[in-house]
């Protein structure tokens, strides 16, 4: 009937995706998809280039938001009920244990994946001009990821949560001038109690996710504005970034002719012009136009595969590995040793050598170092083979962090003494 057709056409206003115009419109006219360019260079598809780590980080974030909101329906952030609600989720809610597991393993996975993503971006030199600010946004996102995990860690209100946050906030309090006051504001008091729990809950569920969402939006927007994903360094012998001072070259992205004739319609031309405007000034010239593919379906298939692999692995983890829940938080009973969450154990290891240097100065220096990388390293070279010093230093610092975390996790026992992990306690 005409009415049904009209209703349908008021929703679906693009051409069929069998046509070129339809493929472009699907991307450019969609709220959810238009962050993608209508067409993408095929080099971006290569698995071994980006390993799709950025996408996987984002998918994990989406999974965490979805499972997190679901958990909020059952969890009450007061010391009287928090632990009991965790037990209820495990035993008396349909898919409760599954959702909680997925949330916890997703959180751990996201920290690992964003660190790997940061390493990849460094390795391929993709932080260089004009992408310096996006790197800085990325560092901010890394810190937000760690803070999100830290604030969420307290919520189960078991011994693991309570003492990890007690230790973690104590390390932070070593910061000169701001430390003790900052800790007081974070905890709503001087000890970890009901005030801390509600503040951590609001930070974890409202404030930090909002900030993260806004920065993610900015991060993706910046990718487009900077000319799309940086080309893989191995392709760079074919083209280089525009030399400083010269006017950048615009790319002519071809628009396939409208099926039905050679005449391009006004909308197709408008799309072509819009695409040129968006990508001009920063995109390097691509040598061969045949390497350009439509986002739909070629990019979307690959993104879909990345999502499905992430999601499938998360389902398996949630089904077969249970997130820990120790005994109810007991301020009178300190476990020995008391350990911060694993991603802060490197810092805790350093703190055991020196509280100020290890707990405050070293992490601060690492963050500052990360932030200044794109402004210090102004050489116009991206190939890893030509940046050996930088890559060695970055790799070593990353590995040092991993080593300290491993030591802190497995090789530290009672009283923070060195023990063999296989020795019985």
């Amino acid at each position, binding site marked *: 009937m005409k009415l049904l057709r009209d209703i349908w056409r008021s929703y679906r206003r693009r051409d069929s995706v069998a046509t070129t115009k339809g493929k472009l419109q699907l991307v450019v006219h969609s709220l959810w998809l238009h962050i993608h360019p209508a067409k993408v260079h095929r080099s971006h598809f290569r698995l071994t280039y980006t390993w799709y780590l950025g996408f996987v980080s984002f998918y994990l974030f989406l999974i965490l938001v979805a499972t997190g909101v*679901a958990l909020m*329906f059952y969890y009450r952030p007061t010391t009287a009920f928090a632990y009991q609600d965790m037990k*209820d989720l495990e035993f*008396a*809610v*349909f*898919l*409760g244990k599954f959702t909680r597991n997925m949330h916890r393993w997703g959180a751990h996975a996201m920290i690992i994946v964003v660190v790997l993503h940061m390493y990849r971006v460094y390795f391929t030199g993709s932080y260089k001009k004009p992408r310096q600010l996006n790197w800085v946004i990325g560092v901010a996102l890394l810190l937000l990821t760690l803070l999100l995990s830290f604030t969420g860690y307290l919520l189960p209100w078991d011994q693991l949560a309570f003492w990890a946050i007690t230790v973690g906030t104590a390390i932070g309090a070593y910061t000169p001038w701001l430390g003790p006051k900052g800790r007081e504001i974070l905890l709503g008091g001087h000890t970890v109690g009901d005030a801390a729990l509600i503040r951590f809950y609001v930070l974890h569920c409202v404030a930090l996710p909002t900030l993260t969402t806004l920065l993610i939006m900015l991060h993706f927007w910046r990718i487009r504005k900077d000319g799309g994903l940086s080309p893989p360094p191995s392709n760079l012998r074919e083209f280089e970034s525009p030399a400083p001072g010269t006017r950048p070259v615009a790319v002519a992205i071809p628009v396939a002719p409208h099926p039905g004739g050679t005449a391009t319609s006004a909308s197709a031309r408008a799309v072509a012009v819009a695409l040129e405007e968006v990508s001009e000034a920063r995109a390097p010239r691509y040598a061969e136009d045949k390497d350009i593919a439509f986002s739909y379906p070629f990019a979307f298939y690959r993104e879909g595969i990345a999502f499905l692999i992430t999601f499938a692995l998360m389902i398996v983890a949630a089904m077969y590995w249970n997130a820990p829940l120790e005994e109810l938080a007991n301020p009178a009973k300190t476990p020995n040793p008391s350990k911060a969450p694993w991603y802060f154990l490197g810092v805790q290891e350093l703190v055991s050598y020196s509280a100020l240097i290890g707990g405050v100065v070293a992490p601060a220096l690492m963050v500052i170092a990360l932030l200044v990388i794109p402004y210090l390293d102004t050489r116009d070279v991206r190939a890893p083979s030509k940046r050996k010093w930088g890559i060695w230093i970055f790799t070593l610092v990353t590995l040092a962090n991993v080593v300290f975390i491993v030591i802190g996790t497995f090789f530290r026992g009672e009283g923070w003494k060195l023990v063999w992990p296989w020795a019985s306690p």
Partner: protein
Amino acid sequence: MNRRSFFFSWAKAGAAALWTAGIAGTAAAVKFFQPMVSYEPPLSFKAGVPEDFPVGTPTLLPEENTFIVRDRERGFRACSAVCTHLGCTVRWSSGDQRFYCPCHGSVYDAEGKVIDGPAPRPLDWYEVTMAKDGQLQVDKHRVVPRDKRLIVES
């Protein structure tokens, strides 16, 4: 089949799988939000042994918002204490043998029928049975006619 249709059917299978997974996931999500346990007083509960209840005056069980009525020596009934107007708890007046609602002035007689006030319906009467351990079992899932009694042989 030729390569194009082989490709085609893979795509269809994948799309069908994704749609099915989506529907199954949505159904599972709906079930996630349905509570499996309740922290409210249960709708079917044990009220106590017959000897606990005096003859003549309805006894209010405040947590379950229910009156146990023993108007004859061996006959037990249970009626709702929730006013049918807007949900306040009614009170029994022995003087004039009526239920009064303090909120908007509804009045019910000893059988739960509305005598006065804005209440639209009479009070519900619930099924009373004898549980196996000798206590009265009230089931608020089941509304029964007002003259249905549990007769307890002493």
